């Protein structure tokens, strides 16, 4: 058992920005970027550190009586709750299913806790539940336990959903962020930044007309297809909050490898690019749902790509970069005009620029 003294919380500060400099929690602490990382590394990890938690993967893989179970949890607080291409209910199922799938697991059972604001229309609640039902059916999982809380009007924002899930990791599958190694190629299963822009298009104050719909989808069946094609898939990650850039930075740090991206190869739909140009966003930092990044041994890449392209969620699968020996811990991109730049983690929330 690990018995860390409380002082470790302070002595563990490695970052130039000590936690104490923030007397209260900012939105950016939940953005999936640097401040989230700091919160985890300086507060949560020192408090709960153990071998299962420390890799900071999307889920933990625990072994019970020789059976490896993946276990994951996530909360959904999206605003607006209904958005083009999906809603909070569908997201709550798919998100946790995907976190399990990224451990290489076959997702089986989910729990759901709902925190509902007083006055929330029953009709909307029913709509959310129907959509959870459909998503669970589609992902082939069962929702087996749950909890309901109602808070005073104004003390919540319509509805928050938290889901946890377990799944079984088949024998021979060992997927984790530290497993990335030089020579791996990085595959994405389709166009990025779609979900974030779909949400942005209906957010108050930003509304713009677009056909862009969220790409939320359960990835477990695609993952099964990929794992059947090759046992040389080292890492999988769904680049949700914080986008592709944050997910790749986490992996680069965790495996202490360098990642080299090629901007031209990263698929981004024109409509999404256009919206990003107008809003001043970098699509690499925009959230995805229903997308995964896979690190695959180079000589297996073609086989995996072929398999992915046969699957409805992988028809546009493509290689966007590779793992390299150089610049360990960071992500460098060859830009569309042939220059190179570091793709850093997001410092705070991505905010529209003035100029």
């Amino acid at each position, binding site marked *: 058992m690990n018995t860390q003294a409380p002082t470790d919380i302070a002595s563990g500060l490695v970052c130039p920005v000590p936690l104490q400099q923030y007397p209260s929690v900012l939105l950016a602490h939940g953005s999936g970027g*640097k401040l989230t990382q700091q919160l985890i590394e300086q507060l949560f990890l020192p408090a709960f550190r153990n071998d299962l938690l420390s890799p900071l993967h999307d889920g933990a893989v625990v072994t019970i009586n020789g059976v490896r179970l993946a276990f994951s949890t996530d909360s959904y607080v999206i605003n607006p709750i209904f958005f083009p291409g999906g809603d909070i209910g569908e997201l709550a199922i798919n998100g946790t299913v995907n976190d399990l799938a990224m451990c290489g697991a076959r997702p089986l059972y989910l729990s759901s806790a709902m925190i509902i604001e007083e006055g929330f229309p029953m009709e909307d609640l029913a709509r959310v539940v129907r959509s959870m039902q459909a998503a669970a059916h589609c992902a082939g999982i069962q929702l087996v336990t749950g909890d309901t809380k109602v808070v005073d009007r104004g003390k919540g924002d319509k509805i928050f959903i938290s889901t946890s899930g377990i799944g079984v990791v088949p024998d021979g599958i060992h997927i984790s962020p530290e497993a990335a190694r030089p020579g791996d190629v990085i595959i994405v299963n389709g166009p990025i930044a779609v979900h974030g822009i779909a949400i942005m298009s209906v957010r108050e104050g930003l509304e713009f007309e677009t056909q862009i719909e969220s790409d939320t989808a359960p990835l477990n069946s695609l993952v099964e297809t990929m794992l059947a094609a090759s046992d040389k898939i080292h890492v999988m990650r769904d680049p949700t909050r914080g986008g592709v850039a944050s997910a790749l930075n986490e992996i680069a740090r965790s495996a202490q490898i360098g990642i080299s991206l090629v901007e031209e190869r990263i698929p981004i739909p024109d409509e999404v690019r256009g919206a990003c140009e107008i809003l001043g966003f*970098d699509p690499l930092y925009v959230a995805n749902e229903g997308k995964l990044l896979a690190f695959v041994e180079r000589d297996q890449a073609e086989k995996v790509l072929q398999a992915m392209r046969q699957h409805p969620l992988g028809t546009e699968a493509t290689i966007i970069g590779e793992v390299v020996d*150089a*610049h360990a811990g960071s992500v*460098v991109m060859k830009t569309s*005009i042939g220059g190179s730049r570091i793709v850093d983690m997001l410092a705070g929330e991505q905010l529209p*620029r003035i100029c």
Partner: protein
Amino acid sequence: MRFIDEYRDQALAQQYVERIKQITTREWTLMEICGGQTHTIVKYGIESLLPETINLVHGPGCPVCVTPLEMIDKAIAIASKSDVIFTSFGDMLRVPGSTQDLLSVKAAGGDIRMVYSPLDAVKIAQQNPSKTVVFFAVGFETTAPANALSVWQAKQSGVRNYSILCSHVLVPPAIEAILSSSSNRVQGFLAAGHVCAVMGYEEYLPLAEKYRVPIVVTGFEPLDILHGTYMAIKQLEEGRVEVENQYSRAVRREGNIPAQKLMRQVFEVTDRHWRGIGEIPSSGFRLRDEFSDFDAEKVFADVATITVQESPDCIAGLVLQGLRKPYECSVFGTKCTPEHPLGAPMVSTEGACAAYIRYKHVPSASAAGGRA
């Protein structure tokens, strides 16, 4: 994507790079004025393509960076008031004042809203008649017309609960401040294309003439920057001193006359303090007296007394003039970081110091498969 990809074409970029290499015979220092241009340079790794003899200095044209500490503190004081809805462009929200930033005020319960246009702020004022709605009017000549229009519109339609906290700055006086410094080493300028789309470029002619520097009005796409750089270097190599227009698809010599007229109706020129640089005479806009009802500093008279000293450790002025590299500063990366900046160029991702912090570990271009 049409009208975008044409300006990010790798083969054309290579051709410009080759041409620049061909004509460059010695070291030259150019300054791009606008933060948007700095952003493009950093985002596309343009410096990694140019010959090492061309030194790009990132100028003071980031409105987020140069807004004085004092003004941020005034914004924070106003935004903390209970009957106020404070509106702002997104990236101003993260800029630290002397003790906190606007996002912290929001976390503490302040009603702070990000808007894309000051006209949205006027709309919010109309929808919330019991609240006072304040818009943080920062920026260069680019944002000034829309900000002027919001005040003009509010006055026309009798919106009494709208005001702006005005901290507008102007480009030509800043160029002159840099050029007139005895230690100046900037030899040519890439002028800010969008500022010139509003103002035209006639006001740059006397500056080029007086200080014997080429000025090239330049756009914001990678090929614009490379083209503008090529034009400026060509002038320098040929010993010419002219104002040229690279961004002719958007900029006319006389600029946007109706926008200029509206700005003059609402604003008048005033002295302005620039964060990290100091006071520059006649370098900003303030509201004319007939619009003083819309001046947040008059509406909230208590904030007028707020004064703040900037950190003496910060050498932003020297960095912005290209006299020091960010890492030559004693507090760079230690007391001064992007999360807790002491001075202007560390504030925005477009600022020179923040760019150096983020990109200081850039490996050799070959390792990244970069330089062709």
